[in-house]
């Protein structure tokens, strides 16, 4: 990626931790957690789901199940982007029918990833309820999809990138915004 402008920090590490704590509280307040399953969307949603599961478990005293979802095979732009060699493995523990499922992703933008995730989850069973939790809602929806739990909302213009950085992928925790690359970096 070509950095044509200095990225701007939206949240530092402490800000992300604070936001995740609030999201955990909101998830607990919104319903029972005994049949809760947190499903992270690969890649960065997975680590956020792990962290949220720990936070919910700390607060309720009960362990929380988690899963991971790779939505590559459910994307609606296969014809445009073509096949990619590496697809992450999807892991959904056990039968999800009747459970409370919370999808966790780093950034909510067009809503197309979440559409794909909903379709994929339906192939594993019929949860009692599916909710959506995102760290950043940047606006710009192209589908009628909204999050139930939002860490931080920020209107980010198209072309700009919201980068959520997590320790397992980026060696740090934080959210920053990189202004429009004007297709320069698109390969």
């Amino acid at each position, binding site marked *: 990626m070509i950095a044509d402008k200095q990225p701007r920090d939206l949240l530092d590490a402490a800000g992300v931790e604070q936001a995740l704590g609030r999201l955990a509280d909101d998830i607990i307040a919104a319903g029972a957690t005994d049949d809760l399953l947190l499903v992270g969307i690969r890649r960065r949603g997975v680590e956020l789901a792990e962290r949220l599961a720990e936070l919910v478990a700390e607060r309720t005293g009960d362990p929380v199940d988690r899963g991971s979802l790779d939505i*590559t*095979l459910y994307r609606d732009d296969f014809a445009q*982007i073509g096949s990619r*060699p590496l697809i992450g*493995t999807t892991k959904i523990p056990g039968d999800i029918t009747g459970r409370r499922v919370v999808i966790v992703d780093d950034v909510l933008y067009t809503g197309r*990833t979440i559409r794909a995730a909903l379709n994929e989850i339906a*192939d594993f069973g019929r949860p009692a309820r599916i909710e959506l939790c995102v760290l950043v809602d940047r606006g710009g929806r192209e589908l009628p999809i909204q999050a139930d739990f939002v860490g931080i909302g920020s209107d980010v213009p198209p072309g700009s990138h919201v980068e959520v950085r997590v320790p397992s992928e980026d060696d740090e925790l934080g959210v920053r915004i990189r202004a429009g690359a004007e297709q320069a970096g698109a390969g």
Partner: protein
Amino acid sequence: MTADQTTASDEAGPAAPLGKDLVGLEGLSGDTIRMILDTAEPFKEISERPIKKVPVLRGKTIVNLFFEPSTRTRISFEFAEKRLGADTVNISSVGSSVSKGESLVDTARNLEAMRIDMVVIRHGSSGAARFLADRIPSNVINAGDGRHEHPTQALLDMLTMRDRLGKVEGLRVCIVGDIVHSRVARSNIFGLRALGAEVGVCGPRSLVPVGIEDLGVSVFGHVEEAIEWADVLNVLRLQLERMNAGFIPSLREYNRVFGVTRARLERAPREVVVLHPGPMNRGVEIDSDVADGPQSVILPQVTNGVAVRMAVLYLLAGGRPELAEDAKRGSGG
């Protein structure tokens, strides 16, 4: 452009370096083969789901064009196609216009006129897959052509070896049986060599091609020597029709000299993993207590066959022909 937060260019990695077709493994690089095997990994999980289907090839039409009898390979391809959401049509030579003398290209052009996207072809003539691939715009996958290649069989063999032994690189793999007529042997030799395995072949003189050492393989005249040397035996089906053609004296004689038996495996210095592409002639090239024993990975091979074929279908369907240099070089031979 309907770019999502996760766009094609940054998160999803580079496009797959496979071309329009998969005709053979000859000339494919180790990196390309590893990429196919790595892509097969996540496809294994789909066959374990309650709903064994993903929509990635939704709306694609795939024709399975089988000019030779096949049960396992055809069904494996059909499962793979259906689990990716494609529509499939099976055409076999018996009971179709093929048996009325229609040429291969006419058959394919008629199919193209019905707007198909991919063809999986099995044919008795070496080179049939390449011939077809050069004449139609659809993706072509070789499911076995004469004595030439059977690339998806070799890929599933290598995936199974990797599952069991951790890696293919450095393994000693001996192919036992009728090497001269075997497309499975050829594809295995090319693929295994590209991945850095040592390859041996073992069989009666009449069934081992002269000059096969030029492909970088060792030749064993006795199955005991092969077993002593190898980490893996890939035991080929003895095609019974060969016996009538005078290549071997009798099935019993073959089993006595080249059969992979429990007693022979027990004398090996290490545990030897045993593969067989099927269908087996129990008591001829392989004994039942080996085929059903703990060293056998014959059923995992069948399971992996579906995953590998899903990976190949997926990679070719979304392939970018301009990135096909690897494939083009491979099909030259």
